């Protein structure tokens, strides 16, 4: 298993380099212009100078290698600097956003907590409610619980989050009176600091709606996978053997069937994690959560190539990484799979 992991990790290096090049190539081929949002009164020759100052007069391959140097060498060295380990010249060039002229990595670090809290929490909540729902739906197949679960999953899966999000805002932020217990803020306030119970309550309240909207969407998918996987396993011969051994029905279901059923579901859950970092872009936009998703949208709109490139690449890293994690989990959960 260890050899397999190391081999796979080494293999990710060329994969990721290739991905970063493809992203860079596609961004370069896109007709977006970083100076496009500037006032029209700026004459073309000044515009050209601005572009040159951003390094856009260089050939594509040079700009790509420059980004590689900034991202793969300078940024890690800078990180080491912050930890007190100084290597080489501290005055190195970092990946700088076209729009804000601040280092992209710092911008990402600023926005990461909001995304992790809101979107990450919604994923955790989604999984936590999806697994029991899937299990019960399968064990009590065609019961009213199963029918209700199917109905809610269908809604959660087919109604887009920008609709449920806005619907929630209409109901819980406008129709419900402001002083009611059921009123929830529609805008996420990043400046809120949790210092006491009151501010903690406010934090929970402002997270509630985006978390609910995203959790519904995630749970809808995962509960279906869980249900199908349980049903596949419930009719297996080993379940009959477990019952014939006189085990309690709980043990049969929650030890024998569940362990087998979780194998495909864990993969689906692990592969869904990068989306958390991707930040459920639309939902962040609806609830004004200034997370990574929103950063990506703004950067795309402003033609901020270094930010888009860096963010997209980080998502790619996460996807590759969680693919690997899913494979390793597979090997741990299923003894028939051995990577030797």
């Amino acid at each position, binding site marked *: 298993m260890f050899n397999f992991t190391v081999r796979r990790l080494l293999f990710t290096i060329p994969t990721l380099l290739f991905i970063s090049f493809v992203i860079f190539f596609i961004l370069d081929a896109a007709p977006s212009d970083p100076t496009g949002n500037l006032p029209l009164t700026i004459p073309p020759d000044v515009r050209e100078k601005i572009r040159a100052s951003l390094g856009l007069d260089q050939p594509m391959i040079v700009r790509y290698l420059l980004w590689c140097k900034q991202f793969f060498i300078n940024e890690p060295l800078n990180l080491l600097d912050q930890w007190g380990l100084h290597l080489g010249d501290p005055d190195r060039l970092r990946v700088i956003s076209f729009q804000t002229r601040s280092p992209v990595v710092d911008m990402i670090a600023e926005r990461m907590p909001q995304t992790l809290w809101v979107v990450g929490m919604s994923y955790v909540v989604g999984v936590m409610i999806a697994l029991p729902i899937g299990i019960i739906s399968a064990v009590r197949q065609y019961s009213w619980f199963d029918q209700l679960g199917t109905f809610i999953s269908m809604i959660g899966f087919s109604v887009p989050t920008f609709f449920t999000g806005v619907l929630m805002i209409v109901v819980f932020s406008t129709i419900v009176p402001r002083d009611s217990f059921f009123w929830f803020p529609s805008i996420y306030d990043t400046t809120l600091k949790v210092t006491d119970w009151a501010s903690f309550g406010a934090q929970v309240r402002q997270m509630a709606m985006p978390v609910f909207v995203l959790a519904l969407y995630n749970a809808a998918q995962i509960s279906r996978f869980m249900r199908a996987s349980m049903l596949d396993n419930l009719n*297996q*011969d*080993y379940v*009959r*053997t*477990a*019952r*014939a*051994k*006189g*085990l*309690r*029905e709980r*043990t049969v279901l929650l030890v*024998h069937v569940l*362990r*087998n059923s979780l*194998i495909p579901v864990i993969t689906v859950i692990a592969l869904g994690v990068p989306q958390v970092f991707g930040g459920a872009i639309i939902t962040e936009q609806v609830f004004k959560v200034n997370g990574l998703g929103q950063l990506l949208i703004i950067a795309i709109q402003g033609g901020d190539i270094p930010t888009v490139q860096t963010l997209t690449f980080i998502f790619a890293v996460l996807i590759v990484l969680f693919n690997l994690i899913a494979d390793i989990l597979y090997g741990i*959960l*299923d*003894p*028939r799979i051995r990577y030797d």
Partner: protein
Amino acid sequence: MPEGAAPILDVSGLKTVFTTRSGEVHAVNSVSFNLAPGELLGVVGESGSGKSVTMMSLIGLLPSPPAEIRGGTAMFDGHDMLAMSQDELRQIRGSRIGFVFQDPMTSLNPVFSVGFQLMEPLRVHMNMNKAQARARAIELLELVGIPDAESRLDNFPHQFSGGMRQRVMIAIALACDPQILIADEPTTALDVTIQAQILELVKELRQKLGMAIIWITHDLGVIAGIADRVRVMYGGQVVEQAPVRELFSNPLHPYTRALLETLPGFVGARSKRLRTIEGQPPSLDRQPTSCPFRTRCRHANDQCARENPPIRTIANGHDVACFWRPDA
């Protein structure tokens, strides 16, 4: 076989019905039989004749719905198993009645080690701790002839061959010293040499442990080799039961006779073609009111269509459900 000993299991009038979308299926119709302590009862019949369903009904292993037990009693050790709660049945399953199923490739849980699966009944029924259960599990694996038992305990089912897995299944079934072992076509999925090994093993274990065995199969050759008494099932009913020698030398029911004729003989001149039983097994969509074998029977007459022949004792321990008499 102890003659006249009180039966350990006495089933009478068992009826099991499955409710399906296209109507009811009467899988087991008024089946009665008993099992003496230490006896090996063979149950033969074609697919769908109700062999397995009878046994599954007794012990509450059929999913309900669709299955429903409509009547009968099954006295085991003075208690009616059909009247027991699921929890009482659960305590009998795996501890006093052990099971071995047909397909050893799928009957073991692939994600747990063989030792874990073997120790489960020991810990549930005999309240053993981990160390005790482990010691007993090693003993059991040795009992069923798995070499190097101690290290094999931590292996997973996919690391065993089919025959070895069936040995593990037998070890699980025997874990708590059951009084009855129900073996549901345990050798059907194995190749012939492995089958012979398993049969030898069961014979040997029976002598060592002395439990009663119900052996479900459709292989008459296996039955001839190991059974004390044979019960032939057809269309969800018992059509004939007799001690094994008596049944093979003097079969009375036309179905049993036909079954025996479908086997190639080992002595004397062989017929050019093997006999086949023409026609299809009966559909079991309602309670039988006539003989279920009538449409395929060479000796059927009007009476067979009017009423279902009751099972009658012809000779000592030889029962048959047929109006026709071979010697008449």
